């Protein structure tokens, strides 16, 4: 494969533009026209990345996206640990998403917590024909009997529910009444709604507003409020991310009254409107409820980024700016406390990673949020894109994160991603399980950036050390030098071997 390694930015841009034209040439004309709007080379100074987003995926192209159910059950609701989340419909959706997202939590599973379990109504043909409302009602009774310590139930709709006209709201209301006002939340997150996971997040956020907040108005807090109460919003505690974030907030003097939704409980959700500030990590999946709490309860919210020391430092100061001098001093103390650790991490790993190029393709906040962590290690992100981002994500990306000439790909197809990586030849690709083995076969080091490749946490200072270690072990593994078959190499290899 002949690959040019462009050195100046003009060459990079030119190569990337040519690359986009090259991948578009494979499509039928109509498709090429549609896909062209999702691919771009970033121009410095522009307010967004110059791509269209949050638009329907094109049939047959191998989109990497998921569905609204995945956004609601898999992301927002699933981690709430003391509730039972019913995958309502056929067996598959719940099965494939069962315990797959590594939302860590503490509790006795099956007794007072239920995250890594798969509850389903396992629809059969008769449920499709006659409707599933009676089954749902009965199923809720069975949950109450077998899992008496559950603190609430959510009904996560799969595709058929909305198509056959079931009234899950009526069932939920009736059952809630029967069980003394128990929280039972119907969620209309059928997989065909919207264009990706994203609408599922929104629907799930709205369900919290309508079926948790509204129901609890006027209810007393179980604890004394303090002036330093904050809630962590949009951290799913993958590999313990929310914990390695919480510890920093507490160390600077804040009190974390709720985690949304990793290791979270219904009591924490209910208490959140009483927070003094909502700190929002995954803007994409939980900006809706943050805005709602601001409008209705007057709780301000602030976005933060806990990947890598530069962004952590910036974020701690930004969060502290909402509070008094005590907290601001606390933030400085936290930054100082961890300085030795981050210096040591950078001293150890930067020499091994400096100058390495990374291509990302992830969801939520990560296509931009992790860029700073790579840069702290001397690495460069040369391509990035969102599975289900909106224009406000691309604005944030353009204004705060990516460099001039970065290749941008929205809702990338399997074909495009493969070609981009083949030509750009990054030292590392960060994406998901479906992509992992494609690139490893090509001899390109890879880390899963949804599940942290079963490692983590990556958030916070403790997480940064793990992040650095993992990127190093991916890129500098001895295995990659063995991918070419030695006797199949042309002159170059033999010449080296002969030296």
């Amino acid at each position, binding site marked *: 494969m002949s690959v040019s390694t462009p050195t100046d930015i003009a060459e990079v841009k030119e190569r990337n533009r040519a690359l986009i034209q090259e991948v578009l040439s494979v499509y039928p004309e109509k498709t090429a026209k549609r896909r062209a709007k999702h691919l771009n080379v970033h121009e410095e100074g522009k307010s967004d990345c110059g791509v269209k987003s949050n638009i329907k995926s094109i049939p047959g192209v191998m989109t990497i996206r998921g569905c609204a159910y995945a956004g609601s059950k898999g992301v927002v609701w699933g981690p709430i640990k003391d509730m039972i989340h019913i995958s309502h419909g056929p*067996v598959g959706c719940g099965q494939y998403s069962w315990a797959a997202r590594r939302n860590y939590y503490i509790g006795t599973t099956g007794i*007072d917590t239920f995250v890594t379990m798969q509850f389903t*109504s396992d629809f059969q043909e008769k449920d499709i024909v006659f409707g599933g409302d009676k089954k749902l009602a009965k199923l809720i009774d069975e949950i109450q009997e077998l899992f008496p310590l559950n603190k609430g139930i959510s009904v996560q709709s799969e595709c058929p529910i909305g*198509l056959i006209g079931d009234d899950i709201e009526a069932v939920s209301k009736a059952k809630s009444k029967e069980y003394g006002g128990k929280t039972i939340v119907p969620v209309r997150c059928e997989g065909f709604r919207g264009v990706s996971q994203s609408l599922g997040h929104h629907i799930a956020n709205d369900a919290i507003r309508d079926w948790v907040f509204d129901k609890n108005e006027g209810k007393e807090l179980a604890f004394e409020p303090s002036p330093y109460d904050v809630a962590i919003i949009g951290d799913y505690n993958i590999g313990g991310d929310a914990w390695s974030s919480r510890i920093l907030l507490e160390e600077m003097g804040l009190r974390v009254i709720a985690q949304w939704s990793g290791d979270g409980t219904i009591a924490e959700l209910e208490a959140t409107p009483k927070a003094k500030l909502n700190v929002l990590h995954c803007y994409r999946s939980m900006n809706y409820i943050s805005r709602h709490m601001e409008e209705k309860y007057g709780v301000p919210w602030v976005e933060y980024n806990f990947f890598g020391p530069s962004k952590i430092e910036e974020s701690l100061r930004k969060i502290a700016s909402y509070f008094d001098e005590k907290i601001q001093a606390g933030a400085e103390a936290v930054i100082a406390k961890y300085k030795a650790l981050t210096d040591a991490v950078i001293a150890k790993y930067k020499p091994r990673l400096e100058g390495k190029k990374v291509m990302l393709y992830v969801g939520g906040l990560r296509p931009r949020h992790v860029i700073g962590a790579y840069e702290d290690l001397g690495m460069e992100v040369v391509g990035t894109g969102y599975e289900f981002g909106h224009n406000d994500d691309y604005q944030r990306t353009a204004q705060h994160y990516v460099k001039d000439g970065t290749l941008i790909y929205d809702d990338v197809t399997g074909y495009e991603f493969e070609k981009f990586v083949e030509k750009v030849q990054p030292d590392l690709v960060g994406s998901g399980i479906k992509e992992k083995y494609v690139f490893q076969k090509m001899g390109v080091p890879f880390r899963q950036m949804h599940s942290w490749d079963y490692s983590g946490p990556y958030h916070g200072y403790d997480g940064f050390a793990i992040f650095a270690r993992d990127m190093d072990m991916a890129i500098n593994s001895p295995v990659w030098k063995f991918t070419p078959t030695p006797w199949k190499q042309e002159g170059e290899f033999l010449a080296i071997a002969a030296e």
Partner: protein
Amino acid sequence: MPQDVEKVKDHFELFRGEEYTTMLANKREQFENTHPAAEIERVTQWAKTEEYKDLNFKREALTINPAKACQPLGAVFVAVGFEGTIPFVHGSQGCVAYYRSHFSRHFKEPTSCVSSSMTEDAAVFGGLNNMIDGLANTYSMYKPKMIAVSTTCMAEVIGDDLNAFIKTAKEKGSVPEEFDVPFAHTPAFVGSHITGYDNAMKGVLEHFWDGKAKTVDKLVRVPNGKINFLGGFDGYTVGNTREVKRIFDLMKVEYTILGDNSDVWDTPTDGEFRMYDGGTTLEDAANAVHAKATISMQEYCTEKTLPFIAAHGQETVAFNHPIGIEATDKFVMEVARLAGVTIPDALAKERGRLVDAIADSNAHIHGKKFAIYGDPDLCYGLAQFVMELGGEPVVVLSTNGGKAWEKKMQALFDSSPFGVGCKAYPGKDLWHMRSLLFTEKPDFLIGNTYGKFLERDTGVPLIRIGFPIFDRHHKHRYPLWGYQGALNTLVTILDRIFEHMDATTNVASKTDYSYDIIR
């Protein structure tokens, strides 16, 4: 500060440090509004009782931790087993993301599959345009030799007609008229992934044998001496298919593997990504109509496919995921009979080595009680082998097993003194199994990765055999079939038994008199 740059602590150790345990205890105490510890303990103990089991078995509407997936997964499994074939699932796109992830987590391999990405408008107007555009895009981008279409429940609920849609798409020029687009309706609310395997396999054969949806003449069978082989939905397809091919080659049998995904799910890392690799050629799939006979390794995966093949004049034979001496004997002898070949001494020697290994080791298994769960055929094969080893199955559970399977299992238990008292549980899930493990108290559990939750809760050691296996690597590369496969299965069972022995005898000066160096 718990983190240490010299020995970076990740989630395994980090959160066990005092800073984190204190922080999380405070979170629990102040904000979680949790139940009192005594109440949690009371319910934990209650959930182990006969009373709880009775309540649990009274469930009619709720399914908890089922050991089955949905039909389209099986259809994707079939499609990737044909040369240059891409599975195309008509319906919502999230489903395809799930199938691809599920297979990749098991095989640690890429799984290529496309969706017609139907959304709300398609729910109202039908998915015809999605089919037309989708086939055209897939054909242009991924240059397949065949596109195998199946459906998600969304397309099934709104009643999309694949035959008509594909025909229209061809008329609109999405793919050439003569391009092969077999299809199968695979509603997720009927059966399970094994039903999907059956429907999709039948769909492919029907396409090639019965006139490609009325576009060409039906094939006229001209019998030859070949044997067709159907593996069924099998997590060990990579190792098993290769082992079966080796056995057939040893026996000098002429054969066609229908749906051979042993290469596409085991491609090399050599700098090139192979979207397609190996697989049954389309020519072989068509010519398979002329075979003398078809063997299915999994009866319940081929309930429609085998009668379809039989109706074309072939003899058909079904096994139940044969594992062990007797089951492999039967398999090998049937193959010899059907193909008219003699069994080579090499296989007799392999058999003797397996018997030798079992004779060496069976004392560690004899009399041990086993609970087994999985797909219906796998359950049968495993239960038969366990009894052959002198083990006693006490609970055999299959979420996607039915009444016929239950009867068949009972006949198997009745055939051996080691099966006395064993019961088959069709249609039950792993929450039922949890109750059974508490009340029936088997020594070991055999099942897939999800069994680790049962191991944690009940203390019954898990022997990982099944699908999916997410948390151990490369097991799918080792066959369970053939004498060699039975040997692998024996070693898998033995290893866990020995590990358990060591783990329960290793307390110095208390139990370590039994911590033997020779076992």
